[in-house]
């Protein structure tokens, strides 16, 4: 079936505005992950979902960041009152189920630019 999709592919916003980033995982994948990729910084873990619950939110950088997942499928990452340091590529990945040996399948990312 289709891979992981993310929308929008690019988002330019003004400082202080809220943004919503969407991730559609592969059908049937119960685990979903959000990462942030900044230039030269690798991938920074943000949050993990198993089904609709988020047992690990340890990577969210501040309370301006939140995420939800509904129906065990689509997830939305929301950033409130965006700051310039939020500019990055936000990647979503899914895997069949939680497990350290599982391959993650990544979407193409959303490039967020905060002016």
């Amino acid at each position, binding site marked *: 079936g289709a891979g*992981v999709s993310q929308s929008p592919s690019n988002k330019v916003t003004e400082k202080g505005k809220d943004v919503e980033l969407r991730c559609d995982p592969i059908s049937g994948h119960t685990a979903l*992950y959000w*990462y942030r990729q900044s230039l*030269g*910084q*690798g*991938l920074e*873990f943000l949050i*993990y979902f198993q089904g609709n619950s988020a047992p*690990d939110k340890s990577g969210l950088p501040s309370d301006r960041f939140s995420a939800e997942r509904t129906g065990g499928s689509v997830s939305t990452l929301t950033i409130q009152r965006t700051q310039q340091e939020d500019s990055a590529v936000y*990647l979503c*990945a899914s895997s069949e189920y*939680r*497990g*350290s*040996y599982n*391959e*993650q*399948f*990544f*979407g*193409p*990312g959303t490039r967020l630019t905060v002016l």
Partner: protein
Amino acid sequence: AQSVTQLDSQVPVFEEAPVELRCNYSSSVSVYLFWYVQYPNQGLQLLLKYLSGSTLVKGINGFEAEFNKSQTSFHLRKPSVHISDTAEYFCAVTSPSGGSYIPTFGRGTSLIVHP
């Protein structure tokens, strides 16, 4: 805690030459190791992974990696690179027990293949 160090941020190489991308990890427990590749404007995709068994792991596109427990390394190699191998390569580690199942990624190595 687990960590990954990719020793080279950029590796330039000529087409048809061999290449090695270095990865060292740190973990107090046993590990699973992964190499992912990211082509421009795309998400990451799995090249290969080490879970157990033979320490030499073969992946897609002619890549292979060798797990060396004593040196805590998982270097990626290819005997003859193509222009199309130009991409960002990420090493990642998880733990089957006692550690985190959330992958920890290195900062990435940019492989640049020149004609």
